[in-house]
């Protein structure tokens, strides 16, 4: 189930006045079961990279293999590939089109060859998985439901065909704080329940990446500039030089260290930071700060 990328380069509008190099010589491997965060400032090539993984952009230079499917082949089996990889774009609610929520979620399974009844069952499962009331919502129009619900329906539309790998492009963009939290909890529960194996998440929000990803890949001007564990990335590399902000937990820990207060821990989320601080102040489990 691994994804192997070797020397991937891509240029938009080749040989036109609008020519723009988007990726140059990117190589990395995503192993089965990993949660990989892809970070980089706007225009660093993140979107181009993930669109390649799903065969949405034709490979022009380099090699990509997804679970044995070679994308540099002359005619790779794109349907098989796309069934394996669920891709959730930015603002996925703008792709909803059907008359009812159920019909929209069924779209994926039916395209991948499921019979109507089967597709309906898969859709029901997916709608329940994203925490929506199936009976209540299935016959409503996807245009009339609330923003948060739309986003969930769009996620269900991807989960319905049971992909092994989930690729998310800014899944929390435009959601309110509760919506953000719910979305991220949903993604991590999908992974822990085994509904999806591997998750690749593109995000500008470093707190989300730090808290959820196991590994971080950083892009800058189309080049891979860092590929390391989340802890190494935020504590040992120069994150700010990539025009990215540090996660809050990391920022405070580093500031404290500058003032001579060593937490002797490398917290990535605020709850981990809390825990480290408690230990430092010898307050023990559950003690008041």
């Amino acid at each position, binding site marked *: 189930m691994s994804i192997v990328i070797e020397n991937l380069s891509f240029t938009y*509008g080749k040989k*036109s*006045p609008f020519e723009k190099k988007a990726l140059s010589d990117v190589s990395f491997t995503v192993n089965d079961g990993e949660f990989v965060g892809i970070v980089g400032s706007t225009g660093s090539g993140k979107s181009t990279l993930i*669109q390649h993984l*799903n065969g*949405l952009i034709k490979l022009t230079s380099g090699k990509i293999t997804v679970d044995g499917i070679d994308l540099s082949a002359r005619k790779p089996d794109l*349907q098989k590939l*796309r*069934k394996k*990889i*669920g*891709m959730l*774009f930015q603002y*996925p609610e*703008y*792709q*909803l*089109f*059907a008359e009812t929520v159920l019909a929209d979620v069924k*779209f*994926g399974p039916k*395209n*991948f060859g499921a019979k109507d009844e089967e597709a309906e069952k898969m859709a029901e499962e997916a709608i329940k998985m994203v925490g929506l009331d199936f009976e209540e919502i299935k016959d409503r129009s996807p*245009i009339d439901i609330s923003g948060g619900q739309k986003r969930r329906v769009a996620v269900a*539309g*991807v989960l319905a*065909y049971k992909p092994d790998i989930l690729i998310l492009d800014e899944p929390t963009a435009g959601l309110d704080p509760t919506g953000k939290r719910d979305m991220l909890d949903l993604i991590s529960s999908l992974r822990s329940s085994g509904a999806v194996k591997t998750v690749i998440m593109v995000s500008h929000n470093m707190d989300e990446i730090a808290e959820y990803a196991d590994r971080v890949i950083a892009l800058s001007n189309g080049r891979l500039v860092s590929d390391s564990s989340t802890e190494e990335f935020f504590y040992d590399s120069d994150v700010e030089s990539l025009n990215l902000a540090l996660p809050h937990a990391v920022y405070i820990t580093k500031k404290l260290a500058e003032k001579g207060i060593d937490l002797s821990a490398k917290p990535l989320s605020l709850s981990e930071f809390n825990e480290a601080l408690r230990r430092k102040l010898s307050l023990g489990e559950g003690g008041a700060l």
Partner: protein
Amino acid sequence: MTKDIVFGQYYPASSFIHKLDPRLKLFAVLVFIVSVFLCDIFYAYAACYAFLLIVILVSRVPILSVLKTIKAVLFIVFLTAVLNIFFYKEGNVFWEWEFLRITDEGLLYAAKMALRIIFLVVSTSMLTFTSTPMALTDGMESIMKPLKIIRFPVHDVAVIMSTALRFIPTLLEEVNKIVMAQKARGAHFDNGGLVKRAKALLPVLIPLFVSTFRRADELALALDARCYNATPNRTKMKPLHFSWRDLVAFFCLAAFLTIIILLKLGFFGLV
């Protein structure tokens, strides 16, 4: 798929042709189209070809980009040529079967018709290659000014046109995004019969309509918030000027038209 659309695209460069007044260019395209229809002998076509070639070379638009615009209409060119070859009745017959016949005059006529279509497409795309959409609408607004006398809302129409043009790339981008999202969910767009293909477009068209209305609403709000109204006497950021370049181009155009008319009248004794 949307990336292949070349027709109607601006090619940024800073050539003599690019710097011409858009009004003159609009007028020149009109004159050229009329000339193409005045042509009847091959020498006249050669003159048109030479004129167009000079314009392309001076404009520094790569020949390849220009040829791509022909590719888009190649089917129509081919179809007209074939129809003309088989259904032209006069001239010496080369081959005949039932109602189909190929004659020498038919072949010539077909070649001329094909050339006409190619000239029309290339000349209009030279206009869009060398003028920004904004310049074109400004030019049209200026040309339409006399219509104000009959209370035609010239400025409103110009604003509507420039807004529409402004949104073409945005909507193309939107289409691209939606197509990608639906492809990721396994949608096919390029197989099956006509009905199946049309149906396959629904998952793209519906979200596109929804987002177009949303965008229109947002734009209207943004215009309102900045107190925009289409007052008739707004000043321009880049007012149009008729410069020495336009004068030179005008005389070249006049010379070209004269040659075409003289050829038409048989002045040079060429047939």
